[in-house]
């Protein structure tokens, strides 16, 4: 088994009693990049949030393991310690806590007491990653995400990923709200992480991101399930034709959005 292996089996998730995920199966191994696409409201963010342990998402059944360890048994911070990372669709803002202070605490949380990263080393690494992501240095000293533009927040999520070096990263609409240059920068960040020790799940609506980050697998999610999986050509077809053909081909009845 590789050092990075996330396995999701028959995952069911409910929010406030309403079932959103209805049996998701997915396996992500080190070196692989998976893309999940699908219409709005089909449960993509729900999958990401449930995997990370978001408090309002209730896993009703199923199994998730990372490198053989039971993820669903872990607290949120333990999941991160185990190597998981989620770039959120809507990152929180934390007033009064600088980006740099936060990142340093996050890095140190993975290290033993007494073995904290030295300030010099931290600054060097932060500087170089921020350079790589073309972020102005002052953003390190701004309060975490406070007043950041949509695109700046996304870039900041990627910065965190690069500093924390997870083994499995889930990127939820990391491309939304990004201008074309920012999109390239973010893609550069993800590609830089590519290695046999790194597996990635990219949630996106647009083929364009996948031009820059070439996925090994593309999955289509509908009604809380992965209904179709394939290679990157699947994304091209979606871009060209939309989701109608998937429904017709698979005989899927989409729920009315208002229906409970």
């Amino acid at each position, binding site marked *: 088994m590789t050092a990075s292996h996330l396995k999701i089996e028959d995952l069911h998730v409910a929010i406030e009693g309403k079932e959103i995920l209805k049996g998701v199966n997915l396996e992500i191994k080190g070196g692989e990049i998976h893309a999940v696409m699908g219409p709005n409201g089909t449960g993509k963010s729900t999958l990401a949030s449930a995997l990370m342990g978001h408090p309002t998402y209730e896993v009703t059944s199923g199994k998730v393991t990372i490198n053989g360890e039971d993820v669903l048994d872990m607290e949120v911070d333990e999941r991160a310690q185990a190597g998981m*990372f989620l770039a959120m669709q809507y990152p929180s803002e934390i007033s009064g806590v600088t980006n740099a202070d936060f990142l340093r605490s996050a890095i140190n949380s993975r290290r033993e007491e007494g073995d904290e990263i030295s300030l010099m080393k931290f600054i060097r690494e932060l500087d170089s990653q921020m350079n790589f992501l073309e972020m102005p240095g002052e953003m390190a000293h701004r309060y975490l995400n406070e007043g950041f533009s949509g695109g700046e927040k996304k870039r900041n999520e990627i910065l965190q990923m690069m500093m924390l070096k997870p083994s499995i990263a889930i990127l939820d609409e990391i491309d939304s709200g990004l201008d074309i240059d920012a999109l390239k920068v973010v893609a550069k960040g993800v590609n830089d992480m590519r290695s046999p020790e790194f597996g990635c799940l990219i949630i996106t609506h647009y083929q364009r991101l996948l031009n820059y980050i070439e996925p090994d697998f593309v999955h289509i999610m509908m009604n809380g399930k992965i209904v179709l999986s394939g290679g990157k050509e699947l994304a091209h077809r979606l871009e060209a034709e939309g989701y109608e053909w998937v429904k017709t081909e698979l005989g899927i009845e989409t729920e009315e959005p208002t229906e409970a």
Partner: protein
Amino acid sequence: MTVELNLAVNRDAVAERATRLGEPAWMITKRQDALDLAPTLALPKVEKIKIDGWNFTEGSTELENVTGLTADIETLVGENRDHLLVTRNGQVVHAQNSEAANGVIFTTLEDALKNHADLVEKYFMTEGIQVNEDRLAALNAALMNGGTFLYVPKGLKLTVPMQAIYTLEQEHGALYHHGIIVADKDSELTYIENFVSYGDAPHNVNVVTEVFVEDNAKVLFGGVDTLAKGAVTYMNRRGVVKQGGKLEWALGHMNDGHTVTDTKTHLVGNDAFSDTKAVTVGRGDQKQNFNVRTDHFGKGTEGFILIHGVMKDSATSIFNGTSMIHHGASKSNGVQTERVLMLSEKARGDANPILLIDEDDVMAGHAASVGRVDELQLYYLMSRGLSRKEAERLVVHGFLQPVVSELAIDSVKERLIQVIEGKVK
């Protein structure tokens, strides 16, 4: 109304003690009158918590003599020992005043009553806090067993901070401390005080501090209180600011026991200015009431109040902020903000901003918020690997940051960050 206070001392004992200390006759009379008055006065007015049951007076005013500086005190002392006053159990153990040659008086009140009695008489509970304000103020005058007198003469602008550390180190002891700080006309001073006590055994700390900012003088007042869980504390601080004077309070209410504080500023002169910044962290089952008030009397006065408090565990804190613009104080501006963050279900916080305006041509504003910690923020931080505790710690620092970062005195800022760290751990 008269209550039975069951004090261990009577008029004679008060006079006997004051005489033994060599206090002037007017002081002895003042003490005795205050003692008689106390049972007829009410406790300080608080909102939404009951303090009747708190034992403000059980501690003994006879405190053991201790000497030297403890390791704990050493950590509070900055670089400069030559403008430092330390009292332990109300008695002086270190007193250095490098500015004496320039006419600065920085000494215990006991000493000032012997050597500068006229000055003390001018300021002791005259224009500032009144003996009959509440029962605990009266008891402070009657039972005072510790105190400070700081006087900076006209025109002298001190650049070094005058620091003071006051400890109470006796179970079932009571410290009645009276501080007087005077910045004479056109002078400037920075004064920093730390009140410290230890242990869970009951003890009492009753502090009255009067700060006088004469015409065009400027005072930075920093206070970090870290009284222990066993302490029942009454902390009454008053500023009187004359024409063009400026008073900035930078306060850290970091006690672990039940606490009532009053921080009031009277802007009596035209164009007087005050800024009150305070932070607090409540934990355990302590209850605290913080009254902060600015009274605008002079024309063109400005008063700002900014308080942030964090409540953990089942701690309760009530913040009452009042800006009172009196008739005649035209062109004045009163602004206040109180914010409370609760970290647990059982914590309670309340913020009551009050604007009282008796004049047309003024500006005033207030903002208040009381809320629980945002679970999504904690989730976000934890998703990066921080433990819940560490995530809370960051959120708390972030919440207090707007006040802490604005404190005018660096050493107070640093000390506070340390104490906050210890309290949110």
